[in-house]
């Protein structure tokens, strides 16, 4: 059993919990366990069977992309942190305010 830290913008998907336990010998199994119980998380965390590019997953403070990705082993008792990008600063909305639209070049500004 490992602990998974849920970021504030994903807590609604897990019933408000700050941390949830999950089972799995590696990140893939652990996320599968988590997403089986909280299906709404799937779209937030995974793209094409990979960790979504706008989310980082850390095992004991190390980015799993610098380890073995989804195959990174997770030992019982270790802490896993899910970290989506967070924009907030001066004003709400925080994470929710933007979209990647079609990148426009400086020459034909999208605004």
């Amino acid at each position, binding site marked *: 059993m490992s602990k998974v830290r849920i*970021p*504030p*913008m994903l807590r*609604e998907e897990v019933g408000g919990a*700050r941390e949830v336990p999950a089972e799995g010998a590696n990140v893939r199994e652990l996320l599968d366990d988590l997403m089986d119980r909280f299906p709404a998380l799937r*779209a*937030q965390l995974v793209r094409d069977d990979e960790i*979504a*590019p*706008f*989310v*980082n997953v*850390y095992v004991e*403070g*190390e*980015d799993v992309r*610098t380890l073995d990705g989804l195959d990174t082993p997770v030992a019982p008792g270790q802490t896993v*942190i899910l*970290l*989506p*990008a*967070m*924009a*907030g*600063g*001066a*004003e*709400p*909305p*925080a*994470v*929710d*305010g*933007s*979209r*990647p*639209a079609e*990148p*426009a*070049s*400086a*020459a034909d*500004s*999208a*605004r």
Partner: protein
Amino acid sequence: MPTYRELLAQLRSEIDEVDAVRARELLAGDDPPLLVDIREFDEWAEGKIPGAVLIPRGNLESRIEQVAPEKSRPILLYCAQGNRTVFGAKSLGELGYTDVISLAGGYTDWKRNGFDTELPGGLDDAKRARYSRHLLIPEVGEEGQLKLLDSRVLLLGAGGLGSPAALYLAAAGVGTLGIVDDDRVDASNLQRQVLHSTARLGDWKAESAKRTLQELNPDVDVKTYVERLTSENVERILADGWDVIVDGADNFPTRYLVNDAAVWHGIPLVHGSIYRFEGQISVFDPAHGGPCYRCLFPLPPPPELAPSCAEGGVLGVLPGIVGSLQASEALKLCLGIGESLSGRLLLFDALVTEFSEVKLRKDPDCPVCGESPTITEYVDYVEFCSGRAAHA
């Protein structure tokens, strides 16, 4: 027990000395020694040898490592007559410095030879009083304070994060602060944006910030940019020259824009973001080997995954904590001291009062700071959720 004269004579035989002519040759050579003036401040204020740093004799042992971390570095010490430096050189030898020489005859003999001197651009009495608590810290001191007064920090946003950051940077005597903000003060801001006040409702935030900061510290020159940072104006604003950028933006388009600009201009970026009870702080400094924001998040999240706007919100004091940490990082970067948060993301959760940290690594495939960048010009991401162009 020896007398002072006897001790001086004995120590003089144990250290290396050079006369003014030889000292001048060494200083003009290819590998000049670090020149340290160990007199008192009032002696220094009347004139010094060009290129010297001041470390009064009483602080020599405690401060020398700040200016000479490598103990093999050649050091030339001088005082008024060449006596205090005998004791100073002996003491540095005991600290492990292997190449310390004393200027025989000191500053007096240097001047007698007609060699160049200059007046130090030191702090006046008012500044010495205002920044006295900085002057007492060996890592800052007079030299550091002069550096701060000469530093230029650009703040994106005079809001929740920008408020504490700007207040502390101004109080610290950062000589020039730039503030980019295109919004006006609204009642809903005052729960956390401590630069502003009820009397300023409706004023431009950048202008309100300027008034507050100049009342706090008239030494600070505040430049205001009442505009939203865009691909159109980013080059113009950066052309004013900044040592550090503090990112207190509230939206992804600005975050990515300023990241890319900071990478291309080689300016360290102090990142802070907040949501409800939680904050994140880091320093992005690829010019010194660290990762950038796009190493962490190559692209913003897609809109369909974002919670609705109404779900935002933030505990009023949270930006006070996160913005103050940003100010602390910015001051260290200006001073060139300590270890920054480059390569680390600090996470703070106010609800359970917990700091944690994750490692950030430079991504060799980063689209902006990687080995083969795929993004080479500014990208305008579109803001849509809040129904207005959100701003820093």
